[in-house]
């Protein structure tokens, strides 16, 4: 197995800060913004973006957690006995700008499921998508509004994200071949 690091701890920190600035700029401030992390690694990323926004905008942006297991269209193809985790959105998202946050954007199927899930929870004024890495190979017409890094990959390669909060090791993004 061949593993190559493409983002370091500092790269990830900078990417998150930049995404935070872009979210604030695009939405003319963040007073109406709600960050919703897609489980699992989207959640700590959303929390980090919120911390950045508190820093330079002085606004405490609410952060929600979205589990999309029940919205996937590949139940029969997946491993044994999937466990469904919790979804928790701290407020009514109707009329708000929801920024979905995930670590890697690949086929777009996870985001499609997340959009379906969101539409059952309320009717946001707008929904935007922030990802740490966009690796291409889309199977659906979906694109990210905020991207930490574009990483052209082959479909034989895998992208692995490690985050302190979940993996208990230093942050890093790797291409695994």
């Amino acid at each position, binding site marked *: 197995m061949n593993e190559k690091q493409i983002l370091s701890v500092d790269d990830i920190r900078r990417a998150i800060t930049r995404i935070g600035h872009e979210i604030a700029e695009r939405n003319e401030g963040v007073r109406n913004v709600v960050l919703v992390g897609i489980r699992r690694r989207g959640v700590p990323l959303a929390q980090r973006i919120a911390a950045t926004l508190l820093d330079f905008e002085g606004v405490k942006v609410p952060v929600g957690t979205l*589990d999309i297991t029940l919205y*996937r269209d590949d139940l*029969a193809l997946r491993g*044994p006995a999937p466990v469904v985790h*919790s979804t928790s959105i701290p407020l009514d998202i109707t009329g708000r700008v929801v920024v979905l946050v995930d670590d890697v954007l690949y086929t777009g199927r996870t985001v499609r499921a997340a959009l*379906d899930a969101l539409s059952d929870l309320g009717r946001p004024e707008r929904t935007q998508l922030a990802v740490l890495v966009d690796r291409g190979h889309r199977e659906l017409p979906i694109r990210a509004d905020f991207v930490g890094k574009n990483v052209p990959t082959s479909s034989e390669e895998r992208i692995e994200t490690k985050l302190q909060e979940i993996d208990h090791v230093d942050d890093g993004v790797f291409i695994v071949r």
Partner: protein
Amino acid sequence: MPAKNTTTVPAPEAAPRRRHVLDLDDFSAAEIAEVLETTASMKEVLGRSIKQVPALRGKNVVNMFFEDSTRTRISFELAARSLSANVVSMSAKGSSVEKGESLMDTMRTLQALGADVIVMRHSEAGAPYFLAQHFHGSILNAGDGRHAHPTQGLLDLFTIQERFGRIEGLKVVIVGDILHSRVARSDLWGLTKMGAQVTLCAPPTLLGPTAFWLATWPDVTITSNLDEAIAGADVVMTLRLQKERQQAGLLPSLREYNRLFAITPERMAKAAPEAIVMHPGPMNEGVEIMPEVAVSSQSVIETQVTNGVAVRMALLYRLAGE
């Protein structure tokens, strides 16, 4: 080839996908914990204004109820619909069963009609097991004779865990007609696997041979003295007394049963301060439980009903990936 004297430790395998749910006897504590976790997420779905997710879109669930049970049938129907499955319910009454069709033939017809999951309630113990040997999809036991009621067992476990944050170490008393109760049997499997201390309390005529219970669940305590059993209990679970038991000569009178085995406020005062009262329904208020207990803040009877839908969603979801 591995070198000599080295032990190969197999990687931990995820539990194989379950095809049927017939009772809790073949569930591990880990699988029960997984189901309870999924149940919590299903309950979150039921709390939304749109109480539906697309997880089982395109799946056909057939409720095959050969014994009347409005509450359980509706609970299963709502669970399947909340997961976007197609649901049809049939009862033996008015169906080909009345015209003499066998259980096997009925199952084959449902299979040919495209049933993916059959939810089955039957008055004979073992009927769902028979179907499970032949049906190509999944069988979910919704109660068979006096044998098993796994969804009730799981919803009871979920309700207890929701209230106390754990099941292990809690003192649970099951009171009433234990001999004829499938609920008690499934609860016993679930509670003992999850580490609760269970006491069975019943008049000897509604318990049967003590040796039978101890052979299967050696750690349970058995008594006929409710006042002793309830002292310090965290969970008091009372069972419905079927009135025909008196006609069958198993009880001298309902009044005597009520005096010795009913859950009264005075008896609840002897339980632990945070104790809860459970009942699988339907209740005979004034027989096995006094009305003031049934509606007290200690009663979680309505919560059990709500949780029943969420538990059934969790199980249907687990089965329907096949």
